[in-house]
Each structure stands twice: as C-alpha cells, then as structure tokens.
C-alpha cells in the first residue's frame, strides 16, 4: 500500500502552521484529489471535507483500494455535484493515512514512523492545513464547501476560521461540538485498538504489523452507530448467514454479525489504527463555542456565507436536534441559513448512500447558488 501512496497527488505545505497543541509544523505533505475543471472565471470550485474514515478519493475508483470513491453517489459526471460543471476538491486530513501528514509517516528526526509521537491535532488544525491548498490551487473564493459528519464539523470550523472564503456551505449531519454520546463511542473505538496487544503503544509499524483485531472492533462500533434501529432491523432482522439453522458456536450465525465482521476486516486493509486514535481525538476536542468568548453567536458573527444545514430523521449520532442547534446559532448571529430534514430510515449513513431526496436537495441548492455566485462575480 505504501508504494501506491507515493503516486498520489501531494502538495508540500511550506507555510508554518501553529497547531492548537502549540507545536509548529512546516513542510508537511497534504494529499488531495480534484475532479472536473476549474473554469476561467473560477466560480465553480467546491471543496469537500471527508469524514472520520474517508479520504481524498471522493469519486470514481479509489486508486489505492480499487473500490468506488466514498461519495460517488453524490459526486461525478451527471451526479448531484456534477463534475461536468463543477471543480471538486478534496484533501486527506492531517492525521489521516492516505498520503497526508499522519502518525504513520516517517519522523525525519528518528527515521521511524511517528506513532504516538505525532502531535494531538484538532479539527481546526486540519482545516488550517487544507486552506493552504486553496491558495496553492489559486482559488480565492469557493462556490461551495460541504461535508458530512466530521466533514461537516470541519466545514463549520472552516467557515468560522476563514469567514467568507466560500459563497455557500452545506454542513450535513454534524454539530458544532461533539456530544457525550459521540465521545463515548469514540472512546470505545480507541479502547478496542489500545487493548489489542499488537498495538504496542502505537509502535506496531516498526514491526510492520497492524492491530487488526482491535481496529476491526473499532470499525464495528462505528458501523452500528451509522445505521438506525429500524434500518438495521429491516435490512438484517434475525436472518441467518447462508445457513438453515443455528450452529451452536460463536461463528457469525446472523447476517448482522457477518456484516460487521466484513466491515471490520476490510477496513484494516486500508486504514491505520493510530490514525483512528488521532482523528477521533480531534473530533472529541471539537467545540466551536469554546474558541470564542461570546460562544457560537460570536463565532458565526459577520458570516456572508449562505448555509444549508441538512439532517436525517433517523440519525442518532448527529440528531436533527443537534443540527437544528447549529441553525439556531447561525440564525441568532444573523447568518443566511436554510435547513432541511430528510425523512429516511438509513441513519447517519444516509449522506453516503443512494438517498434520492437528499441528493435532489443537494443538487437544487448548489445549482441555485452557482447562479447567484455568478451574478455576484459579474457585479
């Protein structure tokens, strides 16, 4: 996998970046991918922020995993975010493991992978690193920026830290701070990894191994939280996995068990365990109101960006209520905000799967914003 990663698009961030943990970094790699073409008037650029286990390969075939890009349902030629029309950019977050600066990269001082010597990063650090990419690509103002889950959290941070760098923004299924329940689920994932003896305080890469069992369990926790109770019941129920009766063993008798095991064990092929630790930590530390004395209202003050917040009715990870709280804060700050709740049984996963109502809303908003943005640029 490391060999293949060498061939992906990377940009060297030379500008020093002061991290929230007070460490300054510079000359680090940021891996990214683009789809479609930037037009001459530069009014068609859309920045996508990826979620916890995502990467820069939004659409088409992911060259590393050979699977479809994680948001191919929404991004591509003729899709809701139409790459025939728009120029779509996505970068791998720092702390990640798809070519950007992360815990599995080599620390030049020790010539070994960073492991736990990697600094604890935040959502704000991720966003600051990605902003440099816009300068690198020569984009002053984006048409739109979007992202779901942790991608949405990055987006809100992006709007707060770099006001008016985007004409419009679509935060999807996210919040302005991580809830106790979400911190708890992340802690479960981290403890699963750290309880795997192979993890060895994060030094497993030196032995060229990966704490697969712990990482797989961490992924299973995630997958449970991405579905809804109803959706899971309808999809799996008590159906048995290719067998007529119970085996009276601890093998995966039920389809849901088999599904989780499959998700867990395919994940370890493409993801680094330490990256899960660092990225989940960044999510847990996320709390925009903490960055401003006046709280959220102060944070969103003077926003010219046009927001569309989208939630999913069966999402219990980032509930409609939490998304509405973001809307209320934006409203209270006088920002231009729309809100839609998509009625679906597909849970938090809804933004990643074929959910027609969601995709139509996404398309309708972006296309109408494009017209407005073109008009604004003309004036």
């Amino acid at each position, binding site marked *: 996998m490391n060999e293949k990663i060498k061939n992906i698009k990377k940009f060297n961030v030379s500008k020093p970046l002061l991290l929230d943990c007070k460490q300054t970094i510079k000359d680090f790699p940021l891996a990214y991918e683009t789809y479609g073409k930037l037009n001459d008037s530069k009014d068609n650029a859309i920045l996508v922020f990826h979620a916890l286990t995502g990467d820069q390969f939004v659409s088409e075939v992911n060259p590393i995993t050979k699977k479809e890009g994680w948001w191919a349902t929404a991004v591509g030629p003729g899709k809701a975010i139409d790459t025939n029309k728009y120029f779509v950019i996505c970068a791998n977050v720092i702390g990640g493991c798809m070519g950007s600066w992360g815990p599995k990269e080599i620390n030049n001082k020790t010539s070994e992978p960073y492991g736990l010597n990697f600094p604890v990063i935040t959502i704000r650090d991720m966003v600051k690193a990605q902003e440099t990419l816009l300068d690198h690509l020569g984009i002053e103002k984006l048409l739109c920026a979007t992202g779901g889950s942790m991608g949405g959290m990055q987006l809100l941070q992006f709007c707060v830290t770099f006001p008016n760098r985007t004409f419009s923004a679509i935060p999807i299924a996210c919040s302005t701070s991580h809830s106790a329940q979400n911190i708890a689920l992340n802690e479960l994932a981290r403890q699963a990894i750290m309880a795997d003896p192979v993890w060895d305080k994060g030094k497993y890469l030196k032995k060229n191994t990966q704490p697969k069992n712990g990482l797989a369990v961490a992924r299973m926790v995630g997958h449970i939280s991405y579905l809804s109770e109803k959706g899971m019941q309808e999809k799996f129920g008590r159906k048995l996995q290719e067998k007529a009766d119970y085996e009276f063993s601890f093998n995966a008798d039920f389809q849901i068990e088999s599904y989780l095991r499959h998700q867990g064990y395919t994940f370890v092929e493409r993801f680094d365990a330490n990256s899960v630790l660092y990225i989940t930590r960044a999510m847990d530390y996320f709390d925009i109101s903490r960055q401003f004395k006046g709280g959220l209202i102060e944070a969103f003050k003077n926003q010219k960006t046009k927001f569309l917040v989208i939630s999913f009715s069966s999402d219990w990870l980032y509930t409609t209520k939490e998304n509405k709280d973001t809307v209320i804060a934006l*409203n209270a700050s006088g920002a*231009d905000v729309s809100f839609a709740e998509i009625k679906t049984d597909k849970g938090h996963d809804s933004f990643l799967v074929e959910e027609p109502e969601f995709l139509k809303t996404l398309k309708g908003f972006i296309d109408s914003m494009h017209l407005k943005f073109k008009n604004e640029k003309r004036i």
Partner: protein
Amino acid sequence: MKKEFKVIADLLPNNIRVLDVGCGDGSLMNLLIKEKNIEARGLELVEENVKKCIYKGLSVIEGNAETELHQFPNQSFDFVILSQTLQAFYNPEKVLKDLLRIGKSVIISIPNFGYWKVRTSLLFFGKMPVTRTLPNTWYNTPNLHMCTIKDLFHFCLEKNIKIDRVIGVNEDKTSEIKKSNLEMKNLFSKLGIFLLS
C-alpha cells in the same frame, strides 16, 4: 400573482429584512426579493415546499411556527409576515406574541369567516362553508381557530396590540378598514390584512 401578495408587497419599504412564516413554495419571498430588494427568510412546515424554496435559492428553515419561533432573536426582522395561517395554530395568541417579539412590525392575513358567502352558507344551507378562500371541508380542514376580521380587530384592541392598518381584500378590490366601517367591511371582504406593531 395573488392580489394578497401584491397588497403585502405594497405595505413594505425597500431593502429591509423580512421573515415569512409559513412561506409555502416561496412565491411571496421571490416577489419581495425581486421587486423590493428585500432580504427574505422563510419558515415552512411542509418538506416538499421547503425543497421548492431551496431549489429557487431562497433561504428557508424547515420547522413548525407553533414550536420553533423561539429560535429567532428579539426584533431581528423589520417585518414578519404570516399569510393565512394564524387560524391553523393550536395557540394563535402565543404565535402572535412571538411574531411581535421577532419583528418590529407584523403583517397578518386571515381568510375572513365573516364574509357574507360564508355566513349565508351556514345560515341558509346549515353546512360548514366551503369557498375558494376556505377550500377544505369540516373534517379535513387545518383551520382550528377560524375568525372574522372583526374578531381579530377586537382581539388586538383587547391585547393592546397596535393596529397600524387593516386592508380588506375582495377579488381585485382592496379597501381600508377602520373602526367606523368595520361591520360593513367584515361582511364584504374575503380576506383581511392587518399591519400590527
């Protein structure tokens, strides 16, 4: 173009901030933006309508005015508009108070239950009226608290709500309603438009 919307647009100055509560598919907001350069926001309950607004590039929040007006800060809009929905709330008094808190002025339009055709329907046929402004039958109407222009007029006086103007609408004709002509206008107006503050 609905006459009602034309009347409402004429009541508004240019370049102000307006909240349209129950904005439907955004027709009024569109009109206000185009003709008056107004910064318009909407609140809408019906998901389908919310999407229509979003596709048009209008700012709309999906939500229920009955329970979600609290999210808008005090006096955060120059005008708040409530078109033909006051009668559909469980607690119209509470909603009205919220509207007056959010907006410096409030425009409310109501289908007039005192209109003569409505009265005759009940008087001569003994049936709940079904008219063009009140198209629903008794069992499926969303209207829980039907009222007349006179009712709302008296209600405002009772609650010390300042009535700046009342306009009666009948098809294409509009007329000013005052205390002096209230009885007559209450009989001949299909719609009442109140400007309150």
